[in-house]
């Protein structure tokens, strides 16, 4: 079939046909930006809907009407919601998250430190858990329905069934209190050396690894198993390829898409969803920062945290989608 004459179709469509991958990525990117805007509206609206505003909540039981009025006046809380939203949005677009209402510190600066801490912990946990999960998944497939498979399954299912704070407490009880080998609390601070830092985060990292391991491992196992039943795997077996080699070489690449997806989801969780772990281990990350801010309705902080969390989620999902498309060329031409 010959190409239709170029003058007859829209330029956008032509671009899409010529660079299908690039077009898809661009499309995803634009969608992500729109999504972020939607999220910012939801965050702002949600905070407005919470009972009590900053002035009353921050001062708590020691709020005199005078002090409350002073704070409202100073922060301009008396102005309409829409005005405040667009002002905030304008500043945020320029990368200025303002300063915390409560502490008057620059939110950007604070988030810089906190996000650094969160990414450090999440990165460390990811570096350990992702290869471990994928490797264990392959092992489980190799030994499927035999003892090693069952042991891997039972242990990882047990870990995922326990709430993360409970795993954390168990690790603290044994490794910090009973044997005294691990550092607790996992408080890190600026002047801390790398070795001390790594020691400090050993227990929270272990907790996180245990929490995310099972999900990724089981998805890897399931995805590879479903590929294993296809015809070309039979061919691989018939041509005499070793069992483990056929898993690594032929099955795993074709099972990549779902694995990438679950890995991205878990990475996002490691950054965004570790509030409980941060609280239990007294780790100064983003989650703890946001919780503190929500408690006193420190809007600039909550909004900035919410936006960054959303961005992390959206970004990782986008990357997962794109990688999945690259891994599976058939997805490039949706019908």
């Amino acid at each position, binding site marked *: 079939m010959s190409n239709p004459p170029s003058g007859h179709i829209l330029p956008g469509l032509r671009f899409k046909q010529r660079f299908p991958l690039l077009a898809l990525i661009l499309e995803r990117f634009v969608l992500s930006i729109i999504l972020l805007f939607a999220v910012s509206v939801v965050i702002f609206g949600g905070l407005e809907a*919470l009972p009590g505003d900053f002035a009353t909540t921050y001062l708590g039981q020691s709020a005199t009407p005078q*002090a409350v009025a002073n704070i409202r006046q100073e922060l301009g809380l008396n102005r309409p919601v829409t005005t405040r939203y667009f002002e905030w949005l304008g500043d945020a677009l320029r990368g200025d998250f303002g300063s915390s209402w*409560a502490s008057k510190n620059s939110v950007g600066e604070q988030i810089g430190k906190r996000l650094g801490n969160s990414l450090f912990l999440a990165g460390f946990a990811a570096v350990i858990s992702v290869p471990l999960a994928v490797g264990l998944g392959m092992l489980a497939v190799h030994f499927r329905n035999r003892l090693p498979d069952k042991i891997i399954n039972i242990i990882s299912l047990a870990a995922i069934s326990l709430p993360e704070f409970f795993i954390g407490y168990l690790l603290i009880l044994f490794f910090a209190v009973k044997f005294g080998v691990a550092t607790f*609390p996992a408080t890190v601070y600026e*002047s801390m050396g790398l070795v001390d830092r790594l020691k400090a985060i050993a227990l929270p990292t272990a907790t996180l690894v245990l929490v995310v391991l099972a999900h990724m491992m089981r998805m890897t196992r399931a995805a590879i198993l479903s590929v294993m039943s296809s015809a070309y795997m039979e061919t691989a077996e018939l041509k005499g390829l070793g069992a483990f080699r056929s898993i690594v070489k032929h099955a795993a690449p074709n099972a990549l898409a779902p694995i990438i997806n679950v890995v991205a989801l878990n990475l996002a969780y490691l950054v965004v969803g570790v509030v409980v772990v941060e609280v*239990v281990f007294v780790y100064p990350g983003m989650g703890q920062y946001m919780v503190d801010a929500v408690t006193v309705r420190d809007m600039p902080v909550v909004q900035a945290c919410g936006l960054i969390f959303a961005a992390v989620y959206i970004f990782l999902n986008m990357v997962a989608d794109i990688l999945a498309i690259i891994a599976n060329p058939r997805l490039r031409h949706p019908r």
Partner: protein
Amino acid sequence: MNRYTKYLTSRVTSGGLSRREFIGRAMAAGITLAVADKLFTESAHAAEPKRGGHLKLGLEGGAATDSKDPAKFLSQFMFCVGRCWGDMLVESDPLTGAAVPALAESWEPSKDAATWTFKIRKGVKFHDGKELTIDDVVATLKRHTDAKSESGALGVLGSIKDIKADGGNLVLTLSEGNADMPLLLTDYHLVIQPNGGNDDPLASIGTGPYRLTSFEPGVRATFEKNKDDWRSDRGYVDSIEIIGMNDATARIAALSSGQVHYINRVDPKTVDLLKRAPNVEILSTSGRGHYVFIMHCDTAPFDNNDLRLALKYAMDREAMVKKILGGYGKLGNDFPINNTYALFPEGIEQRAYDPDKAAFHYKKSGHSGSVLLRTSEVAFPGGVDAAVLYQESCKKAGIEIEVKREPGDGYWTNVWNVQPFSTSYWGGRPTQDQMYSTAYLSTADWNDTRFKRADFDKLLLQARAELDETKRKDMYRTMAMMVRDEGGLILPMFNDFVNASTKQVKGYVHDIGNDMSNGYVATRVWLDA
């Protein structure tokens, strides 16, 4: 060692007894000279503060939103941080609660107690080397009393009309007489800062025993010893590290594994478990904080005093202290004052659980049907349990209570001081006058029981300006009786402050003023190797 000699040695340990006195009394109690001498040396040795070491505290209450500006101190964490680097004009005596000199050396009221003259200490240096002057003091107080101020002390200082320097002295003119003025200046927001903190409220420069070396809000604060401290009876450790730990289990784990020396807010529910740890000491101090059930006196059905009395008699206070506080607390008597206050009205009969009397008053009130009580875990720890316990004790008096559990978020905005019957708590105040003025004066913003009586208000203002202590005590007694018998307050218990330390921590002062040795814990203890 018998009880008397134990008492004597403890007096030595707290520094109240000389060798001669001790040996004399111990021998009179039948102890030989040699033994008495040895006992004295041992207990005096135990009393002698050791210097040096690195003290680590794990405290609940820190948040990323904490501000270094003393005017905005709010959390337990900042309360303790502020006490390390700053001084107030006046401190309160840990045992009696009376005002004692700090940066103010002495003070003198006018006859009507409406003008106060404070003599400011000389030769005190700020951490930056600058000497403390009267201008710094005046600027500090002016900053906290400015009508536009966001200071947490604004309410306390509301009656100050004029602040001025007179020679080296500070002169405060009040809108009405107030015999408690010096005690009001003990408020932890009123840290004296260079030029009142107007230049840089966040600089954390003060005259206290420690300098702030690093601070990350909600995470950690570190201090080093201030070598130029004007006092020698505090600041024993070389350096301090305060770590924010909002999770109760994390605090307990950190303490029992020896990673920190002291934690605050030990949950009464787990205190017995913590006690079993070999190196841990529970530090429980009587306090002024109280857990309350509040009824609005002006809202039906609580506008009927018989119903209010019925609900008071139906409260099983002993069970509350035992089950909700785990025994770490004292019985309340339906007025917000206990014997940790100066001029406490003694000899008022303790109200006890009496289902018959409750039933009698309930019948007399003519009320029928259930009474709605709103509660939440944030009202006080165990708030919901307490409400259910109360429901049970009311049932025996034939009163039906409907317990409604409200969300913790927004409880202080939507329920407390809004709904007619709810659970709540009050922290103590430095003086009886302040406690009553905050919550029982007709015009008080926080009159959460809607207790509005002209005769009570009049008595309160009279007592405030009365410098004669006997007369004042009488007035406070009358006021206590009014609140107890006619008010809308059911006060089952005063909660103790329950903290814990490792056994290395010595010299802990049980201060009735406030939690954590009135915030001074880090500056008062020392570490025994």
